[in-house]
């Protein structure tokens, strides 16, 4: 049993007593003055005394519960100060009201006003401590939020949208110091002679020497301090919230990579665990975006879409926010004039499915004219490398399926020129494993899928 903590936890209950007593006193005071009820004075004085006493108890319990730790230090400090102020002012008011001292009425009025203000601020700080900083206004109307500059976590970090421009120190490390460390390690407080306001200050270290050892997080005093057990007297920060798991991991990674001021997110290979942390704690998606997710195209003309339908194409936009088109041919016999219907929407067509349509080599000239094509399916058509040569200009093409076509290894000469090709399906063609060795060497990121089967080791139970 921990008696202090046990009693301390009654703090949230007891605090409501001074609030009630003192507000009642103020209300009675207003009522008495409005209606000239002099008789109420003794009641007001009684309420003030009760408020003062219960306030003292609340302050005492508050000290007990704050020993538990885990609160934002700065906020706790303000809450404590204003709480004590409430008791002190209540005591003064009682002294005046009960006639123990006499002052001009104006002083009494001023003190009552101050009492109300400190009651409200104490209560508000207390609420922020238990419910979080933005609890009160996080659901408030937009203009109120704007008025009070309510920020959410993302705003604190304020990350740029592309990984290229995300500077690890400035966007991920410094904000952590500002949030958790700077109230002690700043030019006015300078705890242990360590400043954490700028990169230079950080690297200059404190009274016990350097706090960051580039490339070795576990030799870095700062990293050691924030990862000690919380019960350790050297644990940082001593008051307030500890660093989160994600913040610590990103700090570790940054030190490992050399603790540079200018390193960008993309300068280093991002390890998978850091990617996960960026995603789950910072809602920052580092996965490469495909062309259609980054770019936009103008809306296609209605009559051009109708023209597509007349030529047996099914089509749909990729999503409600995109004018890129996903197009599929519907019958088993395609003709050149059908494909010509793609030209008016050549900018928009990005996924094209021409599977099993009887498409021939010469028709691919039309397909080669679709500059924004990212996925193309030509499976089950009698096309050869002659036709594939027409596709050389498809700079955006990411996925190409030639499953069950007539192409031979000659087609690889054209396909190697496609800068963005990521997946190539060549099963049931004349291309064999030996043919693709060379292209695999020059384009290691390109995944080529040939005929697949179970490996020899697969056996029945």
């Amino acid at each position, binding site marked *: 049993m921990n008696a202090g903590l046990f009693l301390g936890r009654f703090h949230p209950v007891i605090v409501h007593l001074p609030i009630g007593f003192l507000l009642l006193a103020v209300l009675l005071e207003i009522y008495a003055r409005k209606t000239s009820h002099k008789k109420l004075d003794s009641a007001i004085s009684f309420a003030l005394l009760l408020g003062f006493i219960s306030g003292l108890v609340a302050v005492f319990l508050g000290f007990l519960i704050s020993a538990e730790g885990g609160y934002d230090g700065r906020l706790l400090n303000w809450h404590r100060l204003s709480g004590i102020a409430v008791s002190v002012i209540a005591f003064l008011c009682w002294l005046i009201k009960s006639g123990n001292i006499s002052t001009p009425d104006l002083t009494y009025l001023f003190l009552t006003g101050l009492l109300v203000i400190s009651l409200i601020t104490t209560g508000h700080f207390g609420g922020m401590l238990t419910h979080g900083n933005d609890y009160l206004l996080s659901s408030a109307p937009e203009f109120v939020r704007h008025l009070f500059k309510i920020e959410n976590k993302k705003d604190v970090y304020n990350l740029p949208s592309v990984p290229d421009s995300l500077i690890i120190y400035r966007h991920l490390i410094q904000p952590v110091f500002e949030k958790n460390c700077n109230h002690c390690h700043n030019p006015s407080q300078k705890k242990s002679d360590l400043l954490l306001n700028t990169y230079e200050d950080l690297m200059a270290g404190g009274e016990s020497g350097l706090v960051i050892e580039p490339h070795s997080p576990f030799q870095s005093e700062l990293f050691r301090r924030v990862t000690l057990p919380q019960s350790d007297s050297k644990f940082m920060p001593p008051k307030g919230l500890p660093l989160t798991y994600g913040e610590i991991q990103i700090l570790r990674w940054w030190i490992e990579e050399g603790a540079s001021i200018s390193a960008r997110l993309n300068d280093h290979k991002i390890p998978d665990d850091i990617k996960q942390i960026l995603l789950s704690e910072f809602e920052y998606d580092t996965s490469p975006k495909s062309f259609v997710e980054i770019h936009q195209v103008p809306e296609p003309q209605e009559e051009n*879409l109708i023209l597509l339908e007349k030529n*047996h194409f099914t089509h749909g936009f990729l*999503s*409600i*926010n995109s004018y890129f088109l996903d197009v599929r041919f519907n019958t088993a016999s395609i003709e050149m004039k059908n494909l010509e219907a793609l030209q008016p929407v050549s900018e928009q067509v990005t996924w094209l499915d021409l599977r099993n349509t009887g498409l021939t080599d010469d028709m691919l000239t039309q397909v080669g004219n679709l500059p924004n094509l990212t996925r193309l399916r030509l499976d089950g058509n009698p096309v050869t490398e002659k036709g594939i040569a027409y596709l050389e200009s498809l700079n955006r093409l990411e996925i190409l399926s030639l499953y069950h076509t007539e192409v031979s290894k000659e087609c690889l000469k054209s396909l190697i020129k496609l800068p963005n090709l990521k997946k190539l399906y060549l099963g049931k063609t004349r291309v064999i494993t030996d043919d693709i060795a060379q292209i695999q060497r020059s384009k290691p990121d390109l995944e080529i899928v040939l005929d697949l089967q*179970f490996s020899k080791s697969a056996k029945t139970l």
Partner: protein
Amino acid sequence: MKKDIAFDHRLKTTTRRHFLKSSSIGLGAIALGMLGGNELFGKTSSFSLKNPLPDFIPTAKRVIYLHMAGSPSQLELFDYKPELMRLNNQLCPPSLLEGKKFAFINGTPKLLGPLSRFKQHGDSGAWISDYLPYFSNVADEVCFLKAVHTDEFNHGPAQLFLYTGSPRLGRPSMGSWVTYGLGSENENLPSFIVLVSGGKTPSAGKSAWGSGFLPSVYQGVQCRSHGDPVLYISNPEGVGRELRKKSINTINKINRSHYDEINDPEILTRISQYEMAFNMQISVPDEMDISQEPDYIHKMYNTEPGKNSFANNCLLARRMAERGVRFIQLYHWGWDAHGVAKSEALNYGFLDRCREVDQPMSALIIDLKQRGLLEDTLIIWSGEFGRTPMMENRGGNDNPFLGRDHHIDAFTVWMAGGGVQPGFTYGQTDEIGYYGISGKVHIHDLQATILHCLGLDHEKLTYPFQGRDFRLTDVHGKVVKEILV
């Protein structure tokens, strides 16, 4: 805004979802949408224009859901627990039993070590047991969710919970929500097809693929691999295709005038289903005829045309995926390994089930991959819950065979293709596989993630019913972004 024409166009493209919300006349427009492009009306394909658009760019266009009805033991297949092996046959500590409810376990059961042997497979090093020798070939194509949990410990409610988001009857199933949200890619086939093997339909019955309060046009259609693929799909003797066409035309004319009179949207569903059935008379027998497949494919899947088997259904699933069926749901019955009888013992009947599914489900992944279809097809494999690390002791006595009870707190689900990270394992359970300790995924999270892959925001895919907007994930669900590509 400069996008006035665009906006206009969008309105047209989103009619189905939006009009459904506002009025029954709208509902008519939607059902009519299903008729677009039908040969009976002599229209060319305007079908896709009527399809609603996804909320964002999808990574999967269709789903193949492989459901192991009865729920296999994750501890014999994927969740390797050497510690549990060490504790084999020891009494379960009371701390694990306090306040827990089990379907059958009574008193203090013993812990049961894994019966299978585990090895790491592929570059990803995924743990897969020797109960699934074929599947270990495709370890690098699959994303394992190791700490999935659910709310229901009995088969029927748990299946309903998984597919409809509620353990009670009445809600639309996942496939219905998806086809409602995305429409069809093939006007000659139902966009939600169900195939059942293993001798029994799942415990939740046909409600697992029902449309609930969505228009019945979105319900799953069960196809059979034996006899008529869809009941009564053949014309009766003496009725030719011409006559059938004429009679359907006439019936629909009458139905339409009836609809004009009373505006009941279910009449439009009926009309469209007549049209669809007429098209299906040609398209379904062709789609369901796996004898057209070459020998090496039959060898790969271990299929035997004409039989009702999970293998045949896997091959059918691939044929349906090729033809643009949106949601393909397979059920294989018989995984409920309690150990009460030999047919459901972990070392007998359970092993038979493994043999039945191992090769075909692995073949399905490989086959879709070589055709480039794994790119935009999402495969999900799961039971409705998991199994306990404890040996079942029904009524407080040891069962005659080795078995495990139903377990809701942690089980393994795998996914492949369609935008999930291949060769990735997410989540972890404790040393004996009793609780998830990291990367926990609730059934509602799984549902949200599946919809996300299809480009649907699970919070926006709603349908107003009895005074409030319903969704598949009810008021829960968080997309598991960590497993997405």
